[in-house]
């Protein structure tokens, strides 16, 4: 791709806050330079120009699949794209809107928020796009980090797959020499299990990590996080909520939720027998 033709790119969003596209627009000083290196075929948030049938070298997709409309749109993107890059947590694991997956049915959500039946709209339980189509690269974050996007884009322009970050926030926190909020203050920091790349922004401001970049797939020890926080005196519901903010679709967290709810059910049952 180096010097011949400009790669054709499309920037799409499914259900989410639009923050990952916005982070691209937030690259103000280099935005025009950056975009000029591509042929933009679709960028709904910033342009009215689109070629709906055009083949794409790269499709950047943000947002979760939360409706049947999302899913159809995603499938069409997949058909026309050589490479799909999921940008942001929504597109990777569903982000905050997946917080109650497995805990609260779509029926219940519809009733609570809209006061109508589930078939009133075409909703689906929110999931990342890799649950439905093949995804070549994931760039995590809520929102994504500009530096990481830029690194990914330059790598791709160069012809390489960017290296993915698969170590936790603790690493960057220590590289910056921030005092450990978990060890020193007993704050419920999720740094040990959350994907780095943010340069430990929150600990740098004295705030415990809430996990907005999601756990590291097949690596994070979420059971240990639960144990550590229980020992520090937090209750199970509090910890689970926290793990779920951005990890509702994460397999190990779902397992943990199940284990805990079964345990508490068991506890309730035995209480009932006692009385």
């Amino acid at each position: 791709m180096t010097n011949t033709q400009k790669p054709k790119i499309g920037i799409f969003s499914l259900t989410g806050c639009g923050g990952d596209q916005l982070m691209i627009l937030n690259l103000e000083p280099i935005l025009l330079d950056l975009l000029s290196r591509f042929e933009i075929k679709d960028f709904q948030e910033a342009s009215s120009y689109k070629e709906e049938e055009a083949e794409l070298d790269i499709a950047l997709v943000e947002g979760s699949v939360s409706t049947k409309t999302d899913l159809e749109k995603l499938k069409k993107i997949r058909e026309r794209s050589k490479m799909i890059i999921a940008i942001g947590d929504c597109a990777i694991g569903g982000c905050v809107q997946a917080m109650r997956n497995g805990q609260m049915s779509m029926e219940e959500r519809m009733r609570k928020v809209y006061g109508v039946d589930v078939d009133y709209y075409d909703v689906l339980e929110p999931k990342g796009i890799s649950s439905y189509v093949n995804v070549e690269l994931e760039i995590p974050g809520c929102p994504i980090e500009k530096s990481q996007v830029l690194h990914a884009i330059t790598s791709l322009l160069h012809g390489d797959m960017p290296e993915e970050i698969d170590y936790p926030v603790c690493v960057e926190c220590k590289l910056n020499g921030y005092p450990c909020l978990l060890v020193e203050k007993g704050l419920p920091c999720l740094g040990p299990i959350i994907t780095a790349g943010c340069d430990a922004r929150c600990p740098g401001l004295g705030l415990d990590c809430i996990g907005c970049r999601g756990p590291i797939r097949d690596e994070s020890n979420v059971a240990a996080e639960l144990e550590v926080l229980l020992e520090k005196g937090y209750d199970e519901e509090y910890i689970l909520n926290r793990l779920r903010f951005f990890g509702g679709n994460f397999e190990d967290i779902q397992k943990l939720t199940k284990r805990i709810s079964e345990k508490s059910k068991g506890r309730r049952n035995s209480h009932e027998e006692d009385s």
Partner: protein
Amino acid sequence: MSVRNVLVPSPARILKSEDMTDIEKHIELEILDKEFAKRFVYKPGQFVEVGVMGVGEAPISICAARKKEDLLELCVRKVGRVTNAIHRLKPGDILWIRGPYGNGFPMENMEGSNLLLVAGGLGIAPLRGVLQYALTNREKYGTITVMYGIRCYTAMLWRDEFLQLFYEGDKNNVEFFLSYEDPSDKQCYELQCERSDRCMSGVVTKLFELKEVKPENTYAVICGPPIMYKFVVQELMKRNFDPRKIYMTLERRMKCGLGKCGHCIVGSGRNMKFVCKDGPVFTYWDALMTKGMI
């Protein structure tokens, strides 16, 4: 202060970049900095850190004996970011090199002995250097036996070169054996029909059935995928080889090549080794003393 910066690479121009298989290229490089070229003295089994600007570096073993001061031959398999990038480059393009690193094979120690070279797949690359060195210094070594295990005919590296040895090596006291893993491979089958005493289907250790290997006055040199070492060593130990006379070269993540970055560390508290500087060539004795080495 006049300390040389060992982390800064030197440019080398690609003279030749030929596909040997779908995933392996033979690359010839000309070292551009002639002062650097002079210092760049290497022996078989050593490796270089090869860099592509903007992508990174990867350790690549040198696949030929040193013939000319500024010339370097590498065999690059496309397996990761850096090697993918190397594959994209064309003659005339620049690679950045550091090295040579590692201990290499002790060719002098082996002088006066027979050589048994056992290679699997890409493992033939460093052994090609050993073979070339021994052939250029033919009088210094006894019988040379090569056992080369491949997956199929098209996966055979330096095919013309090695087929010539396969057919005519005996003239030069080189016995070349070939095994292939895909039994349905027609071309390999034809080779086997032609020379059933030198070629058979199966893993490389099957070749021990064709050749009676004796430990006396013989050094074994092994290179191949990690899984291969155990089985080859087993065969050699059955035949009473001295663990100190079995050489093997290991693969690890040798990021710096200088014993600093720590990625290639291996062993237990009793014996920790950096593969990049203590190796990558080790004896089987080292492996027995160093947990987790093979």
